[in-house]
C-alpha cells in the first residue's frame, strides 16, 4: 500500500473503565469506525474514517466515548496551515475538486455579533409580552403604495397575492434528495403547525407531501427538477432560485447514488443518474428574461401565488435586487455567504459571496432610496443562528428570515459537514433507508416547532424591551441598532450608529 500523507483528523477516546462493549457505537457508525474484536474481547476504532458526527458519543449509554482533535500537527507555518497542506495532499491524490458541506466555517467577521440592540428606559416604557399583546405576524408580498376605496368603503385597490406568517421565520430551501424524506416530513409538519412555510428546494415535491401544500413554498431552480403544473400549483408561493449563498454562481450536483426510486420519480429524472443543475437558468440572461419567467409562473398559477426570487449575496447585490423589485417579483430572498449546502466546492463555499448583514442593509437602503421597497418583501437567509440575529435582521430591514442550518440542528445535525458523503448518521442528509429511519419525524417535527416557538418568545421579549409591540414597527428600525467595534465604512453600509452615539 502506498504511503498515505493524510493523517486522521480526530482521535476516538474510549474510556475502558466505562465501556461495557454493548457495541452501539459499532452498530450506529455508518462510517464503520468502530469494530468489536471477539478474539481480544475489545472494541477497536479506525479513526481515519471518523468525521466527528458525535453519533456514537451521543448514543453511548455509559458516556465512555469522546472524539477529540488529533493533536498530531505538521510543523507550524503561519502561511501554510495544516488544513491547506492536507488539502494539497488530498488533491494530489485524487485530482479532484475539493468538496465540503454546510456553511462557510472560516473566521470571517460575523456582523450580528458586532451589533447591539436597544431597550427602553424611563421615557418610553417597555412592554411585557406575557401581559400585553405582541404581534409577530408578517405578510409577505408586494404591497400597494396607497389604498383606494369605493364609495361604499370597500377596497378598490387590487391587492397582490401574499403569504401570512404567524412567525417571521420560515424553513429555507433544502431539496428532497439532499435531505431525507423524514427530514422533509418534519419540516412540512412543523411549518403547518407553526403557521409558517417550508421550502421544497429544487428537488420537486414528494407525492406524500402535497397535503402540506398550504404551508409549502415551491422552488423552481435552473435544473427544473420535478417541475410540472401540479407541482407549481401545490404550494402557497413559488420561489425562483437564481443563486445560493453557499455557492454563488454555481448550480447543483446531486450524486446518482442519492437518486433512488422515490427521488428519481419526484425529480422526474432517470434512476441513479446525477442530478446536475446548470449554473445559470439557460433562459435568463437579463432582468427582462427573469420577468418572463416570473410571469410564466404567475400565469401557470392563475396569478394566485406570490413569486419570490432568491439570489446569493454578491458584490452588486443592491443593484440586482433593484432589478428584481422591478421585474414583477413579490419578494426577494437574499442568501448570505455563510448559508449551508449539502455539497459545494470548498473554494467556492469559503471564498465567494458577501456577509448577509451587509447585503441586507445595502438592499433595503437601495430599495428605499429608489422608492420601490413596497414592491417587494425582503427575506434573508444565510446563517441566522438565533433569535437575536433574527431581530437584528428585521431591524436592518428584513420582512422575514429563512433558517436552514438552525432547523437541521434542531433535527439532530451535529455540523460535521460531511453531508456530501451521503452517509449522514443522523438520518438527515442521506437516502440510505437504514439511516433515514434514524430521524423519526414524530420527534423531529416537535423539535422544530419547539425551536421556532422558543425563538418567537425571545423575539417578543426583545421587542418588548425596546417598547415595540408589533414586528412591523421593528422592521427597518435601524435606530434600535448600534455597532460595536465597527469602522466608519461598515457603519455606513449597515446604516447604523456606533454604540455611544
Amino acid at each position, binding site marked *: 500500500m502506498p504511503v498515505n500523507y493524510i493523517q486522521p483528523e480526530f482521535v476516538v477516546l474510549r474510556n475502558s*473503565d*466505562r465501556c*461495557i462493549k*454493548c*457495541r*452501539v457505537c459499532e*452498530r*450506529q457508525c455508518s462510517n464503520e469506525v468502530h469494530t468489536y474484536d471477539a478474539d481480544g474481547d475489545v472494541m477497536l476504532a479506525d479513526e481515519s474514517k471518523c468525521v466527528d458526527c458525535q453519533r456514537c458519543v*451521543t*448514543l453511548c*449509554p*455509559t458516556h465512555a466515548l469522546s472524539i477529540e482533535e488529533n493533536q498530531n500537527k505538521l510543523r507550524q507555518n503561519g502561511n501554510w496551515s495544516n488544513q491547506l497542506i492536507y488539502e494539497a495532499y488530498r488533491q494530489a491524490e485524487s485530482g479532484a475538486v475539493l468538496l465540503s458541506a454546510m456553511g462557510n466555517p472560516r473566521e470571517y467577521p460575523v456582523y450580528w455579533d458586532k451589533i447591539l440592540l436597544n431597550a427602553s428606559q424611563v421615557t418610553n416604557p417597555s412592554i411585557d409580552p406575557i401581559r400585553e399583546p405582541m404581534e409577530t405576524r408578517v405578510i409577505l408580498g408586494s404591497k400597494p403604495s396607497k389604498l383606494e376605496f369605493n364609495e361604499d368603503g370597500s377596497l378598490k385597490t387590487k391587492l397582490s397575492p401574499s403569504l401570512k406568517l404567524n412567525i417571521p421565520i420560515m424553513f429555507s430551501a433544502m431539496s428532497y434528495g439532499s435531505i431525507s424524506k423524514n427530514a422533509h416530513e418534519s419540516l412540512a409538519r412543523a411549518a403547518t403547525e407553526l403557521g409558517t412555510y417550508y421550502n421544497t428546494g429544487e428537488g420537486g415535491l414528494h407525492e406524500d407531501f402535497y397535503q402540506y401544500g398550504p404551508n409549502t413554498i415551491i422552488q423552481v431552480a435552473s435544473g427544473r427538477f420535478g417541475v410540472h403544473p401540479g407541482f407549481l400549483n401545490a404550494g402557497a408561493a413559488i420561489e425562483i432560485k437564481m443563486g445560493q449563498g453557499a455557492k454563488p454562481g454555481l448550480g447543483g450536483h446531486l450524486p446518482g447514488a442519492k437518486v433512488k426510486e422515490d427521488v428519481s420519480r419526484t425529480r422526474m429524472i432517470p434512476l441513479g443518474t446525477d442530478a446536475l443543475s446548470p449554473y445559470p437558468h439557460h433562459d435568463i440572461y437579463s432582468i427582462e428574461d427573469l420577468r418572463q419567467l416570473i410571469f410564466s409562473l404567475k400565469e401557470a398559477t392563475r396569478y394566485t401565488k406570490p413569486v419570490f426570487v432568491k439570489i446569493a449575496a454578491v458584490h452588486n447585490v443592491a443593484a440586482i435586487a433593484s432589478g428584481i423589485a422591478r421585474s414583477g417579483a413579490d419578494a426577494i430572498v437574499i442568501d448570505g455567504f455563510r448559508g449551508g449546502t449539502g455539497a459545494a466546492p470548498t473554494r467556492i463555499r469559503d471564498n465567494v459571496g458577501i456577509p448577509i448583514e451587509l447585503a441586507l442593509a445595502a438592499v433595503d437602503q437601495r430599495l428605499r432610496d429608489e422608492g420601490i421597497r413596497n414592491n417587494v418583501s425582503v427575506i434573508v437567509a444565510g446563517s441566522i443562528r438565533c433569535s437575536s440575529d433574527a431581530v437584528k435582521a428585521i431591524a436592518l430591514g428584513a420582512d422575514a428570515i429563512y433558517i436552514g442550518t438552525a432547523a437541521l440542528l434542531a433535527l439532530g445535525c451535529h455540523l460535521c459537514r460531511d453531508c456530501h458523503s451521503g452517509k449522514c448518521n443522523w438520518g438527515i442528509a442521506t437516502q440510505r*433507508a*437504514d439511516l433515514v*429511519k*434514524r*430521524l*423519526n419525524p*414524530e*420527534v423531529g417535527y416537535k423539535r422544530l416547532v419547539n425551536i421556532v416557538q422558543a425563538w418567537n418568545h425571545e423575539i417578543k421579549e426583545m421587542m418588548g424591551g425596546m417598547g415595540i409591540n408589533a414586528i412591523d414597527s421593528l422592521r427597518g428600525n435601524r435606530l434600535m441598532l448600534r455597532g460595536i467595534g465597527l469602522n466608519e465604512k461598515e457603519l455606513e453600509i449597515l446604516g447604523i450608529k456606533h454604540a455611544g452615539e
Partner: protein
Amino acid sequence: MKKVYAIEEYCLACHLCEYYCGFSHSGESSIVKAYKKGAPQARIQVEEGSEVNFALNCRHCDNPICVKSCITGALTRDEDGVIRVNQEKCVGCWTCVMSCPYGAVVRGHGDKSVALKCDLCTESGDTPACVQGCPNRALVFEDRGDAK
C-alpha cells in the same frame, strides 16, 4: 392497560433497549457497574432483519397461555394486567418459553436458571427503562385499549 409497543419503522436495531432493560433489572446503581460485574439479561430482544427491526417483549395478553401452561404457578396475571414470574416458584421447565406465541419469555442464565420476562418496570418507575432509553422513540408506552 399501558403496554410497550414497538414501532418497527423507526427501530434502528441499536439494541440499547436490551442494555437499559438488563440494567433496570440488575439491581445495581449504575449501568457501568451492572455490566462490569456480570451480564445482566434483558427481557426485551431486538429482532433484526435486513430491512425491518423491532424490539420484542411480553404482550401481557388478556388470556395468557404462559400462565395457563406454568406447572408451578410461578407465572401469574396481576389485577393490573401485568404478567409476572415468581422466581422463587419457577423451576426452569421452560414450558412458558415454548408456549408463548411471541417468544417473549427469556431463559435466564443466572445461578438459578429461571424464566425472565418483562414486568413493565413497575417496581422501578413509571416508564419502562427500554422506552426511556430508546433514542428514536421506536418504543412507546401507551394504552391502546383494544389491543390483546
